[in-house]
């Protein structure tokens, strides 16, 4: 019985779990109000990411491109950034923030982004846009480093660094959510409200789930303002829910402005949500109210109906964002399931030092593998060719064929989940998320039992 932690042995990727860094930075950019990012690179780096967001949210998000063509690749492309900033500002009068997100191509040709920002600040912005508040922020996300996860982390840090400004203490908590869905933000804000805590939520993305209005006014865009970002330096503390998606910014605020920080665990499942509330209590001095005891009780009631009857010893593989995968594994263990394979999809060397992974290594009493720098072939190959037996797969939609081809039920969770309806609306965090996850797992297993005629009569009585 052991938990084996290692990196994928192959050099390449067959069916990736993640896309590259600029996507993560673009996800951060759409969370900011009055912000349209310019991705400095080829047009595909934007077009496909916008399509990915549209597939996941079934909504549109605006992101611009510097439209790198051949000549720019040869002669340098900072001129394209200058034009892009001008065109964007001229046509979008509401825009206050323009992150300039680099890609592999523009990092390789070595465009000086800080230099061009400096030039624009002292030239175009002063001359043509005098009196207009515009912030240009460099976000370096070469695609050949890290993944969309680190791209998210880098972008949050770059934006917090660009804006955070110490003035007067605001008595608030900074809550850095990491790469979550609108449903998660709703659930987190509910917990904060129950605790009567005033928080700056980075990023305020509930409105990604926007309405179709009779007056056609519905727009999907984040609500975090420049003022919110500035004010992060004046908080009583920062809680970054995900170590790998926002942890860097929390550390920066601690180091630079002495804002104490707590990083993780992601509040997925009962235990991690308890931890989160305890952290909030410690940071704010506010008690955990009776109403949350009740809410927790409803979640535990729901899970008790399921765990030992249906979930016990079910073998699960989980892939996706590292904080999500680890927290889901912990929650599955609480629900008597056996996570047997965890796939972490990039080469971050920090995973080995992660206490949560160390705890799995030390304490799991069945055979479990954690693969770093993994791809989805690590899953598919084990099932198809190496005899891995699974009862459930948990992960995002790009892994759908591993489930479909191998006849294994799959719960869609994480990003993106375009092959199921409306998942962005449901939380996985908090007690509400625990209920949703447990019941989604149960209903997925039930449907599978019926579809495969595998003791489907069991549910005649329940």
């Amino acid at each position, binding site marked *: 019985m052991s938990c084996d932690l290692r990196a994928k042995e192959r050099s390449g990727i067959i069916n990736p779990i993640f896309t590259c860094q600029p996507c993560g930075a673009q996800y951060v950019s759409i969370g900011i109000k009055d912000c349209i990012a310019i991705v400095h690179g080829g047009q595909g*780096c934007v077009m496909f990411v916008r399509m990915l967001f549209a597939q996941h949210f079934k909504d549109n998000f605006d992101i611009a491109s510097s439209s790198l063509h051949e000549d720019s690749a040869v002669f340098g492309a900072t001129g394209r950034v200058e*034009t892009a900033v001008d065109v964007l500002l001229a046509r979008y009068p509401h825009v206050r923030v323009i992150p300039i997100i680099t890609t592999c191509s523009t990092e390789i040709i070595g465009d000086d982004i800080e230099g061009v920002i400096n030039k624009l600040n002292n030239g175009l912005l002063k001359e043509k846009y005098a009196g207009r508040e515009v912030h240009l922020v460099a976000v370096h996300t070469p695609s050949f480093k890290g993944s969309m996860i680190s791209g998210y982390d880098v972008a949050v840090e770059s934006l917090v660094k660009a804006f955070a400004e110490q003035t007067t203490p605001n008595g608030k908590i900074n809550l850095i959510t990491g790469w979550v869905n609108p449903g998660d933000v709703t659930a987190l804000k509910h917990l904060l409200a129950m605790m009567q805590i005033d928080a700056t939520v980075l990023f305020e993305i509930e409105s990604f789930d926007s309405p179709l209005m009779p007056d056609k006014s519905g727009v999907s865009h984040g609500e975090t303002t420049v003022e919110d970002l500035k004010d992060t330096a004046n908080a009583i503390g920062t809680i970054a829910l995900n170590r790998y998606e926002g942890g860097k910014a929390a550390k920066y605020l601690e180091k630079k402005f002495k804002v104490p920080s707590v990083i993780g665990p992601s509040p997925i499942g009962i235990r991690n949500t308890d931890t989160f509330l305890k952290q909030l209590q410690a940071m704010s001095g506010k008690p955990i109210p009776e109403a949350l005891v009740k809410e927790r009780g409803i979640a535990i009631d729901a899970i008790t109906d399921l765990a030992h009857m249906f979930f016990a010893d079910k073998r699960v593989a989980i892939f996706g964002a590292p904080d999500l995968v680890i927290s889901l594994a912990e929650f599955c263990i609480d629900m008597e399931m056996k996570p047997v394979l965890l796939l972490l999809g990039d*080469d971050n060397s920090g995973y080995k030092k992660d206490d949560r992974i160390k705890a799995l290594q030390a304490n799991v009493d069945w055979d479990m593998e954690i693969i770093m720098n993994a791809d989805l072939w690590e899953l598919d190959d084990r099932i198809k060719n190496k005899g891995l037996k699974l009862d459930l797969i948990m992960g995002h939609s790009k892994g759908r064929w591993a489930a479909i081809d191998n006849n294994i039920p799959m719960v869609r969770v994480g990003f993106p989940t375009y092959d199921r309806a409306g998942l962005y609306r449901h939380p996985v965090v908090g007690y509400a998320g625990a209920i949703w996850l447990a019941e989604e797992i149960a209903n997925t297993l039930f449907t599978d039992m019926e579809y495969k005629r595998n003791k489907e009569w069991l549910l005649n009585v329940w």
Partner: protein
Amino acid sequence: MPYHEFECSTCIPERKSHAVLKGEEDDLTTCLPEGHLATIPGTISERGCAYCGAKHVIGTPMKDAIHMSHGPVGCTYDTWQTKRYISDNDNFQLKYTHATDMKETHVVFGGMDLLKKNMIEAFKAHPNINRMTVYQTCASALIGDDMEAMAREVMKELPGTDIFVCNAPGFGGPSQSGGHHKINISWINEKVGTVEPKITSDYVINYVGDYNIQGDCEVMCDFFKRMGIQVLSTFTGNGSYDELRGMHRAHLNVLECARSAEYICNELRVKYGIPRLDIDGFGFGPLSESLMKVARFFGLEDRAQAIIDEEVARWKPELEWYKKRLTGVKVCLWPGGSKLWHWANAIHEEMGVEVVSLYTKFGHQGDMEKGIARAEVGTLAIDDPNELEGLEAMRMMKPDVIFTGVRPGEVAKKQRIQYLNAHAYHNGPYKGFEGWVRFARDIYNAHYSPIHQLSGIDISKDDFRIDKGFMTRQMISDVKLTPEEAHVEGETPYTGEFDCVTHLRTKTYPSDLARSTTAQAV
């Protein structure tokens, strides 16, 4: 020129020559926007890159090859599972994608060893596949890896394998169109003529420029096979790597999407003397004429006519049912490239809809020429549209339905305009006679959706009725028809199945049709 200047684009005057409003007296000499020029940075254009034009549009529909991109992981991930090019071999090409996962160390020291390792690993992972296509990306192009050299080495080390290399980095040209061109030329230069195909008929074609979106290509091949024609290869929907190496033995290249695949047809004509015949699989009229054109080349007119008669008799009454109810519905035809002219006139003539606007993301002036020639007076035609211009055009033209991509479709949704997926289709295929009825069905379902009727009501302001109950689509659509118009013997809504393609894969065709001596036996 009757250029149309968008209010949102007055600050970028160079955009003015990219849109025209077709007037009463206009023809192509007086009404043609510029096209295929460099994109203006920051406009939020809808264009993609040359890499995706090569790999995603043309390369990957090939069904029996490993598809690999040499670069960071993003290019691969982003162009995976975003299209519906199916195949008859259980969709291997949809399920698997490969990235060499280039990292900083490879950018500094070169990525050739990495590429070689990847190729070998991939062949090992898929022991039943021994063909591979490999694509350059921005990163591998800029560091200058010699991918052909690595491909040669691997082919030597792994006998029986064959590898195709395509050098179309993302920054090559204003749009995905540059990639279409590069992969066409690379394929004919590197691969055509390297396999001798088995010829089984006296009538042999390549079917070129169809990507088997939801089964389009399989539907078209069914017609050709019913005529006794051997389809040597399909470029590239449902296409087989080795069959495409034998393209040079066809008697005729039958070309569908001239935007993405005319290049290889032109080269096949120059190099092997194979004539090019442009056809059109969309619409009863254009498709009938197209089948007849192919038949005429081989002297098979009787067979074509028999197919046309059978298909028209089966499906025309259903198309008529929809035409009545779609007449006057205003649509924007906003696809990527060639569909703007494939569909412009056919949907007007055969479904009765009014095309109020055309646009193309990556088309050239030639595509616009064909589109505008086929468009009605008053049509707004836009080249390389951007986000704000699209919104302004919607407000100006007030369409009921827009045919476009997934993401722009979401923009339309918020404007209370229904959308149909022009690239991947809603419930296709749309080619073929039955497919054309499916297209009409999808437009009808979009336009007369009861939910769409509800979306316009502001419950806080409007005096809406609560005594009316539900409205079916037909209750909504038939309001404007007389009872005689609404009920014509034989005319019904679509009666086909959800899946109208899979059954074609097990269909058999009489072998005697393949010989010219039996041509009269039909």
